[in-house]
């Protein structure tokens, strides 16, 4: 299983590639939705990305901003899901 740093890095690269921001504009704790780096279409693409890359499916009650607000939050969420399997 990948460790948290690897997961974070993958997600960060995905966010950078799907948005227009550069490497230095996305830190692990940057609030990607609040700051408008990702919009509603970006949200759908993140859900699809974690499904494809980590086989993690978010349940309805897990679709809360706290789980997706930053690269770090998404990585923590993915790791929790992977560990609970």
């Amino acid at each position: 299983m990948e460790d948290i740093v690897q997961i974070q890095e993958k997600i960060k690269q995905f966010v950078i590639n799907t948005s227009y921001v550069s490497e230095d504009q996305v830190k692990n704790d940057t609030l990607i939705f609040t700051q408008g780096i990702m919009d509603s279409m970006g949200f759908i693409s993140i859900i699809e990305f974690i499904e494809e890359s980590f086989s993690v499916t978010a349940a309805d009650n897990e679709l809360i901003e706290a789980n997706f607000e930053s690269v770090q939050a998404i990585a923590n969420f993915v790791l929790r899901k992977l560990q609970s399997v």
Partner: protein
Amino acid sequence: MNSRPQRLLGEALEFSNKNHPEKTAAIYKGKEYSYSDLRECAVNLAFHLVNSGIEKGDRVAVFMNNSWSSIVSIYGITLAGGVFLVVNPQTKANKLNYILNDCGSKVILSEGILMPELLRAMEGQNEIQEVILSESKHPTDDENFEFTDFEEIISKRESASLPVIIPNDLAALIYTSGSTGFPKGVMMTHQSMVFTSWSLIEYLRLTGDDSIILVLPLAFDYGLYQLIMAITIGGKIIIEHSFNFPPTIFKQIEQLKPTVFPGVPSIYAMMIATHKKTGIKFESIKKITNTAAALPAEFITDLKKIFPNALIFKMYGLTECKRVCYLEPELLDLKPHSVGKAIPGTEVFLRSPEGKPVPPGETGILYVRGPHVMAGYWNNEELSNEMLKPGLLPGEKILCAHDLFKMDDEGFLYFLGRNDDIIKTRGEKVSPVEVENSIYQLNGIKEVAVIGIPDVILGESIVAFITQYDLAKFTEKEIQQQCIKSLEPFMVPQKIVFLPEMPKSSNGKIDKSELRKIIGAG
């Protein structure tokens, strides 16, 4: 009920407060605020602004995310006799600086989280006398930076006397993209905005029982009028920052049961995608509205499933008169491609480029007549004269929308296209020149041409064509990264096409119609 008619924007709040002070006016982040809360806070702010030297007609900028503070700001400024302008919180420093200089705002209301951008925008600004900050806990590096605390101002009463305003006075400037690459401030008077709000309330059949959920920015006139309508009818507004994280909005709708959902096609597309996966359905919603880009006819079936109890309003407008027309929801299937007829109390007609009347079924330029038409652009007579033309009566002005329409024999309007370069994407206007200028800042770019091409979801998507000098080898991503430094996210081109040579017309100008052919949209 009041026996006095509403003449000024701020009177809507006064009247609704008088009629039902305890009723909920706004919900923000789970907290409910009554009409008396809103009035109290707005009056406190108004008194402070007057004591700070704001006089009738002075411009006051609001650079905030949608929030309780932003709605208190709008009503506080208007009660103080000031002219409010709401700036999109995603605006970058250079454009914000331009807007602040253009309108000569003396006071700016903002919030802590936006400080970095605001500080950069204020460099070299000396007209600004006071910065009022909401949620100011985010520190700045500059210890000498002075600001007043918003929350403190709205919680205590100073003494002052408010100026007398009349309906002809300016109420707001609404900045919109212009073909010159610089935004223009659309001047709206109190009488114009009061008239428009009642016209919209009438055809949308809104009542005091309605509750509107706002996910659109207040800087966008479509968003701003949701607030104005809610307060005017004594209804409720549920304020959200944006639609960026849709599950939050879906939960809010389920919990708070709003009755009105104003959206744009990109929002509806996202909802339809979610509906197909999870079957989301919102039964509380009685009305949904769409403007900014045409609602694709194929969306209607799915929207009826998501909002089984809702009337669907298709509308069309431009900031210069707020709204032009709407289609009665009962006619949706009968006139699937029409955007309807003029809003109540106004009229529209089509003319040829030579100014002659156009018969039914033929293409013409749209003209709009009514009290909703802007007073002009702030500080820009030349551009005002391009839009405002002599009307039917001596001295009267009517609005030339520069949009091409046809009208059927029953008077229903059909949008055909624009006759200028402005791109409309995600409901926002984008000036190609502004995007081109941003890309030209990169060293090694030879020529840039930006166009909009039809897109089902966005209305138009933005494409930039670029030629480079030999050595420079930029990638699509690098161009987009350059754009995001100075432009709002919706202005960044979705596609970059690198060409060895720009197609030119015989007079040496870049031939945009040739570019359309290259991309297959010609």
